[in-house]
């Protein structure tokens, strides 16, 4: 691994002008593309490209909850499965859940339980599947951002969408939305998810080292970026259903979307 030592010495994450390796400023997001309704079989779906991340999310339900002993007679379960394709990372990942994906699946399930009107669908399950096709750091945030759009696309009643983004610390400075290189050689990473309309934080994780003021700065970056992501999510849904409305119009009178 003499390679890595070499890179660590050479790599400069932020230059003298406050620009990062890909030219971004510290408070800048990578390019993000959100698309709603991309899969046929799923009740709702979305695709997110976020820098080098490519993530699909599908929602099925409300449907019968499995395993059945988990059924709650008073509300729906929200169950998420986060999964990485074996080819999504540089060293092939063994197929199936590992400890990391189990943990991510759990906290994402909990995040969405906070916004879905679960009491409307007792005994059922709303199943969210996040598939990471290509990973470039920030996959859970891209996955949550996609899953929120997929839930809306599936017509699941929710208090609001959920927008997610991470901030961290690179070269001693707080920065928004770390890419893979920055994550590997950075000092901290702090993914969060927020309900934009209410400001409720429904997911928060952190690893690394941040002072209190650095943490405040990171949250300011993330909160602000979440608003921009929220607009992209709504925009994707509008595009999806504007098309449907046009199609209905073209189909002639008496046909409603």
């Amino acid at each position, binding site marked *: 691994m003499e390679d890595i030592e070499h890179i660590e010495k050479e790599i400069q994450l932020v230059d003298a002008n406050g620009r990062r390796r890909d030219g971004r400023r510290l408070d800048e997001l990578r390019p993000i593309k959100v698309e709603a309704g991309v899969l046929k079989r799923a009740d709702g779906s979305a695709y997110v490209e976020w820098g080098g991340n490519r993530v699909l999310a599908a929602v099925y339900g409300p449907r019968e909850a499995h395993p059945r002993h988990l059924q709650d007679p008073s509300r729906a379960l929200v169950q998420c499965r986060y999964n990485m394709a074996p*080819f999504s990372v540089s060293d092939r990942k063994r197929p199936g859940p590992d400890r990391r994906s189990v943990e991510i699946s759990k906290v994402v399930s909990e995040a969405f339980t906070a916004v879905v009107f679960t009491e409307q669908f007792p005994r059922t399950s709303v199943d969210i599947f996040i*598939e990471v*096709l*290509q990973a470039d750091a920030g996959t859970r945030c891209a996955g949550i951002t996609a899953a929120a759009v997929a839930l809306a696309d599936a017509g699941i009643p929710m208090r609001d969408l959920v927008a997610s983004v991470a901030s961290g610390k690179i070269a001693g400075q707080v920065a928004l939305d770390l890419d893979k290189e920055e994550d590997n050689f950075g000092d901290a990473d702090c993914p969060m998810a927020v309900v934009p309309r209410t400001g409720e934080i429904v997911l928060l994780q952190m690893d690394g080292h941040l002072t209190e003021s650095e943490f405040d700065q990171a949250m300011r970056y993330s909160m602000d970026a979440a608003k921009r992501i929220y607009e992209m999510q709504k925009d994707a849904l509008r595009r999806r259903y504007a098309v449907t409305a046009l199609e209905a119009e073209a189909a002639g009178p008496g046909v409603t979307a």
Partner: protein
Amino acid sequence: MSSEVISALMREHIVKLVASGKRADGRGPEETRPLTIEKNYIKTAEGSARVRLGNTDVLVGVKISTGEPYPDTPNSGVLTTSAELVPLASPTFESGPPRPEAIELARVVDRGIRETKTVDMEKLCITRGEKVWVLFIDIHALDYDGNLFDAASYGTLSALSCAKLPGRMVGGEDQPLPIQHWPVSVTAAKIRDKIVFDPALDEERIADARLTVDTDENGDVRAMQKGLSGSFQYDEVRYVISTARRLGNGIRETIRA
């Protein structure tokens, strides 16, 4: 492949259509669905392809590393094929260890390329008995609308055809994989006494028998797999083979393009 319920009405409808030489989606019995292939879809993989066959959507990634050869083939690279039928792709797919359906899919695709010597495995030897190239083919179903066998097979051949042996692992230049044959799989479904090609989901669900035939660029048969509980007459098998050969030629052009 699924335990999904299909209504008696739909079943009768499809049977009647097929009996009169028609199909629910307007295709002729020997007509395959539109095929689109995006090669090099995943940047974290050494080779990849996203294939859409109608609404069926499959992503195949090839990961390549170096490793030890098997003792009985010290001169030859190693090839492993796995398939994940992730629950994102269909309401009937469940998470958990691979089910027989996924294992059959992976093995049929594997046979299609292994037995045909699609990749010249001897050229994947780096140091005899010590170090060879190891290929992992991972089939990731994204949207299941029938005939995963063919979609996965086209995805695999496409991904192999654009895969690069990573030169950095052996201190050299990237090299294309030594591809020497172009086997193409074509699947037929038998519904009562009629045969249709590239079955859509509803056709697959009510089919009595299924036959997958791999033919190569010389028109020779390289692999076959019969599935489901029904049966074929010998002249039906011959009909499927000759049609698979003819359809395969067009599909091969698309894959090689």
